[in-house]
């Protein structure tokens, strides 16, 4: 028994070392390179994966060392990660805040330590960021609402599968609601929270369909929300009655739109452009050039037609 325990204990300890060394610790870096610390929301969304890939590529091109950490939806973890970056004395910080208000004090701490902070994709309320680089989310919400208004003939009941804690989502829904409000016969009947996650979106949409059997359209604030809603709508057999619109243009969402499913349109963002632009803005700032406080990155609407045209 004792032998077996000892063996197991050593096996576990060896795996600790292997995990620690194997999971992405950066190569012994060129100490002279400026270091950028990036505290991002999550590693699990494809959006962030694309953004990070572009960041890494651009950082390489600009001669920066990029260090990555992910909050995975935990504000305290992100707070602590940022504090560690501050203690390391990084040359610049990129933050995609897990919640738009909770990172304000620690961003102020970074600025007080003389570290310029840039927010990417998600803004921090009233925070002292040098520059915020993100998709034009308000515009993205507007173009979806205009699409729905056209498809529904200016009349119908709409629900939003929402994630109101995040500022960029607030912008999307603000743009969306702004346009919907211009149509007296379009009403938003309910906003349900999905936290931007598919399984949750599926569940809340099932409840939504029970509460509003006469629903005409659903706006999912990101593609995971829209795809979760799609699964619920298909399970209820309502795919010919309800139009879903989403946001992000992930490959899965594009496939669904291409195949003519109930998900009809998406606002696409260009996460790679956000990632690359963020590094370019930092490069400018580190050279001592002026950078604007907000750098909007373009968005576009995709539909079955536009995707078909793209392929030709």
């Amino acid at each position, binding site marked *: *028994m*004792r032998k077996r*325990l*000892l063996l*197991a*204990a050593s096996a*576990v*300890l060896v*795996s*600790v070392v292997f*995990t*620690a060394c*194997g*999971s*992405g*610790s*950066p190569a*012994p*870096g*060129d*100490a002279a390179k400026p270091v950028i610390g990036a505290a991002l929301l999550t*590693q699990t969304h494809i959006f962030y994966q694309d953004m990070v890939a572009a960041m890494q590529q651009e950082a390489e091109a600009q001669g920066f060392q990029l*260090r*990555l*950490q*992910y*909050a*995975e*939806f*935990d*504000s*305290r*973890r992100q*707070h*602590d*990660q940022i*504090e*560690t970056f501050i*203690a*390391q004395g990084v040359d610049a910080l990129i933050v995609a805040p897990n*919640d*738009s*208000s*909770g*990172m*304000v*004090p620690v961003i102020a*701490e970074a600025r007080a330590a003389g570290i310029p902070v840039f927010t990417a994709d998600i803004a921090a*309320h*009233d925070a002292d960021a040098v520059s915020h680089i993100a998709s034009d989310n308000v515009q993205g919400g507007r173009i979806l609402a205009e699409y729905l208004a056209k498809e529904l003939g200016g009349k119908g009941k709409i629900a939003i599968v929402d994630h*109101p*804690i995040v500022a960029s989502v607030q912008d999307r829904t603000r743009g969306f609601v702004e346009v919907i409000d211009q149509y007296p016969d379009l009403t938003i009947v309910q906003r349900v*929270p999905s936290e931007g996650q598919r399984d949750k979106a599926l569940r809340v949409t099932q409840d939504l369909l029970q509460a509003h059997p006469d629903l005409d359209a659903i706006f999912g604030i990101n593609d995971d929300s829209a795809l979760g809603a799609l699964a619920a709508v298909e399970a209820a057999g309502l795919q010919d009655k309800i139009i879903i619109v989403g946001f992000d243009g992930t490959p899965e969402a594009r496939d669904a739109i291409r195949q003519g499913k109930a998900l009809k349109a998406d606002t696409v963002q260009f996460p790679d452009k956000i990632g690359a632009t963020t590094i370019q803005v930092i490069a400018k700032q580190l050279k001592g050039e002026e950078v604007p406080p907000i750098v909007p990155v373009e968005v576009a609407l995709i539909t079955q037609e536009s995707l078909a045209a793209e392929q030709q």
Partner: protein
Amino acid sequence: MLSPGAQSLRRGLLTYGPLLTALVVEIIAFELIGRRQGNPGFASFNIMMLVLNQSAIYGVMAVGMTFIIITGGIDLSVGSLVALCGVLSALAVKWGGDPVALWIVVGWGIALIAGTASGAIAGLFITRLAIPPFIVTLALMSSLRGLGNLMTDGKPVSPLPDAYAWLGRYQLGGTIPVTVLIFVVVLVVGIVLLHYTRFGRNVLAIGGNEEVARLSGIPIARVKLWVYMFGGFLTGIAGIMLASKLGSGSPKVGVADELAVIAAVVIGGTSLSGGRGSILGTFVGLIVVSVLNSGLTWIGVETFGQQVTLGLVILAAVLLDRLKELA
């Protein structure tokens, strides 16, 4: 013959050998890897203070959890309660307005009362209705999380006046964070309470053998109720600290905190089957985990790798504990 309190303290001391070794090895390893990456300075006073500061909130909760686990119980609701208490302390400030200082203190009071009340509810269900702690606190975990979300519509309570962040962010003399001071006070209170009072002896006796404790006239129901109320009170303190640190009362924080806190207690050598444990053990267990998390961030290991590593460390700690029992 040593008193039961002193005995458990001594047993606690035996636990620290391997843990302290692990701690020193960790710190040296991160310093060396950091240097290789052109990034020295992990083994420094500032970083250790940072680690202590980052452990303080978990630590305050872990002291309460140690008592609960020693009685043979468990509290799964702390992660939800820490968020709810933070939300309450922030709401008081938001609704109260001027004078800010008064409403901040009122908010602290409300959070502490809510925390203690939640502990009392758990304790009453467990002792008067004989429902297993796992079930009672699982139910509370869900309800309290929902309550926090309901009260705030799922959004963080903000913006709050700058003074609100004092407790979470102020550093005495620019080096000692207030949160660390609170943590130290809670640790000392916990150690005295568990190892040097009749109450602590009763807690250890109940966890050791509830039937024997009953026969020797220990008021089991009352002791357990106090233990859960104490745990709730400490979670209230942690909630205030966390919301103040983040500068907003968010209903979403603290998810899976119960696991992190239980992990620290278990790594620190407290037995999940009750009757055995020490506050200092919990403290060292917590610091081992915190140094690991900060160090992995320091050398650039991403979050997923950190999660895997934490699980392996829990496993290793329990295996070592078993070995010690056999020795």
